[in-house]
């Protein structure tokens, strides 16, 4: 009941004209960012962060989080209409969505994606509203050892549960930690890894790194191939209407996708990409006609889209309740909180109650805004796909530079952004995951301060991390997350040996 009361106050905050406008602008920008290939929600939030300076923190956060979940809706358009996922989490949507479009059912695909995203998104926000206070209350019992282990768990789960190589993901997390170590030691004030460079005394800012790696790096990779005129499938307003058969086919897919997405999104570091892939796989297994998958199955689109939107909302739970980002985009949001002068962590829910509940309420409103935008206005947004990418790419690059300058008024930071842009490009070439880098940079201050505090308390004994039940459990979870990929590999190898034996 208390939660409902707080949520009511949250709606009162979210329904002010300024906050409504901010949520709308965030959703609209997120929609466009989702449509545009070469820029994702993490880079979008980082790029647009400077325009929130000077507005109240709650308003800024509502806009920035609107960008995050708005991008999930926007990514569907390009996936379905031109078979190019505008956002990584829409990759699975493209598999069946574009096939449906070729069969003249683009409208149905877009429609079910929007409706599935809405239902799953609202469901996820409702669960978020009830889970956050519970988790936040539990986290009030945490001390320095628990925070260190929780931050470490955030990095290890990113590596072990994310897509791609675990060892490469861990390596990139180490890279992120190295970047975060540059600057001044927080306890002694001594310069560290600055190599005599005055500009590095304040450390390497998070925003230039995020903008460089996710924004500039992605655009550079997109420039490799000259963009030929893509022919895309037109869609009309009347095509968006779903039949009763479509509803019956998709309702369980939305439920299953939303549930999978929520559970995956809760896990720090995993994110909507894995959620949509897992939901697709689950739906394939649950379907009575799995042979349709890959050839234009509407329920496949429903599952993938429900999952990615649900995961994005769920990723806010560890961020709000624990101060641990659940994805690259929430890592940037967390950095935004710090820039806005707010300290993330378990105390956020009590100390900044109006901000948190206003944000949660705005997520309900944002999902409503997005379904209104996506259903009748889908053909309008689809028209923006006609703009050749070569006219957009230079704009994205210069906005990246201006945004980086605006955060610290330093041309040195602009140089850092370009440097990390090249790094981001090379990371894409060498299949190195980028999310662990930004997660590590965001988590590093918490990791270092809590580690040193813990060892100070225990007079140097590492046993402090095992003494309390919560920290012991977290320690076990860290070890499990590191061991999980090894077990998976052994299982795959054993299966391979078995097949070799039977052939």
């Amino acid at each position, binding site marked *: 009941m208390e939660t409902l009361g707080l949520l009511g106050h949250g709606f009162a905050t979210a329904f002010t004209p300024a906050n409504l406008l901010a949520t709308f602008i965030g959703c609209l920008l997120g929609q466009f960012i989702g449509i545009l290939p070469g820029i994702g929600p993490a880079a979008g939030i980082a790029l647009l962060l400077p325009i929130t300076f000077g507005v109240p923190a709650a308003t800024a956060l509502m806009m920035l989080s609107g960008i995050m979940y708005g991008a999930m809706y926007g990514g569907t358009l390009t996936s379905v209409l031109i078979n190019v996922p505008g956002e990584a989490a829409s990759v699975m949507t493209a598999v069946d969505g574009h096939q449906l479009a070729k069969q003249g059912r683009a409208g149905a695909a877009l429609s079910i994606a929007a409706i599935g995203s809405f239902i799953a998104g609202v469901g996820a926000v409702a669960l978020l509203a009830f889970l956050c206070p519970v988790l936040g209350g539990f986290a009030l019992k945490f001390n320095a050892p628990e925070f260190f282990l929780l931050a470490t768990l955030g990095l290890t789960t990113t590596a072990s549960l994310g897509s791609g190589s675990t060892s490469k993901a861990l390596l990139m997390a180490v890279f992120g930690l190295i970047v975060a170590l540059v600057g001044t030691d927080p306890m002694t004030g001594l310069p*560290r890894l600055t190599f005599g460079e005055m500009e590095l005394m304040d450390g390497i800012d998070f925003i230039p790194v995020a903008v460089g790696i996710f924004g500039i790096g992605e655009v*550079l990779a997109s420039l490799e191939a000259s963009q030929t005129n893509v022919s895309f499938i037109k869609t009309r307003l009347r095509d968006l209407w779903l039949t009763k058969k479509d509803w019956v086919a998709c309702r369980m897919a939305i439920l299953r996708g939303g549930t999978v997405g929520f559970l995956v999104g809760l896990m720090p570091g995993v994110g909507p990409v894995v959620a949509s892939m897992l939901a697709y796989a689950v739906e394939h297994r649950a379907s009575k006609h799995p042979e349709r998958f890959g050839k234009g199955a509407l329920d496949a689109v429903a599952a993938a889209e429900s999952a990615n939107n649900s995961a994005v909302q769920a990723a806010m739970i560890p961020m709000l309740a624990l101060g641990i980002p659940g994805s690259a985009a929430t890592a940037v949001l967390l950095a935004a909180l710090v820039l806005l002068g707010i300290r993330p962590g378990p105390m956020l829910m009590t100390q900044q109650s109006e901000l948190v509940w206003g944000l949660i309420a705005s997520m309900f409103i944002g999902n409503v805004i997005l379904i209104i935008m996506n259903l009748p206005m889908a053909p309008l947004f689809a028209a923006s796909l006609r703009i050749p990418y070569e006219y957009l790419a230079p704009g994205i*690059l210069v906005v990246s530079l201006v945004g980086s300058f605006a955060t610290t008024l330093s041309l040195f930071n602009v140089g850092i952004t370009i440097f990390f842009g090249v790094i981001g490009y090379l990371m894409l070439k060498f299949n190195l995951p980028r999310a662990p880098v930004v997660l590590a940079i965001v988590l590093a201050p918490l990791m270092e301060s809590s580690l040193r505090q813990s060892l100070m308390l225990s007079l140097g004994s590492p046993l402090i991390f095992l003494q309390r039940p919560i920290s012991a459990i977290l320690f076990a979870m860290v070890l499990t997350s590191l061991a999980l990929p090894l077990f998976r590999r052994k299982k795959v190898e054993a299966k391979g040996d078995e097949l070799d034996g039977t052939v």
Partner: protein
Amino acid sequence: MRTLDVAPALVMLGLSAVVYGGTRDLSYWSEFTPGPAFLPTWVAGAGVLISGVILVQALRKGGTGKPEWPDRAGGVRVLLTTGGLMLCVPLAPHLGFVATTVVFMVGMMLGILRRKLVPSLLTALTTGLLIYTVFVWWLKVALPTGPLGF
């Protein structure tokens, strides 16, 4: 040799060595508290360990695994764009930030991406105007100005 795996591992090995060497003069432990070199040492150690694991895995797996580099034209586009971005940094204080971005965009669209003149100029000027309106006029961000005042 799997270049995809070996190259990043070698780079990180080098970086870890730099981190360790760069913090050797700082104290690892002082009385009963970890010093400024504590975490860098452990991070460098983790970097060496994980790089070692990747190198061993790469040597055991064998086979080829090379990055998909672009063709010549694509490579030139990427290199020239990067070079253009780098040039923006020293030019901005002299030309003005907004003017520099407009020049960069025109150069990129006409010279690198080979787009048509009028749409390129329109796009660059519109973006420049947008940047000026949002960042200079609305947000009052003190972007470096040049002889034209922006």
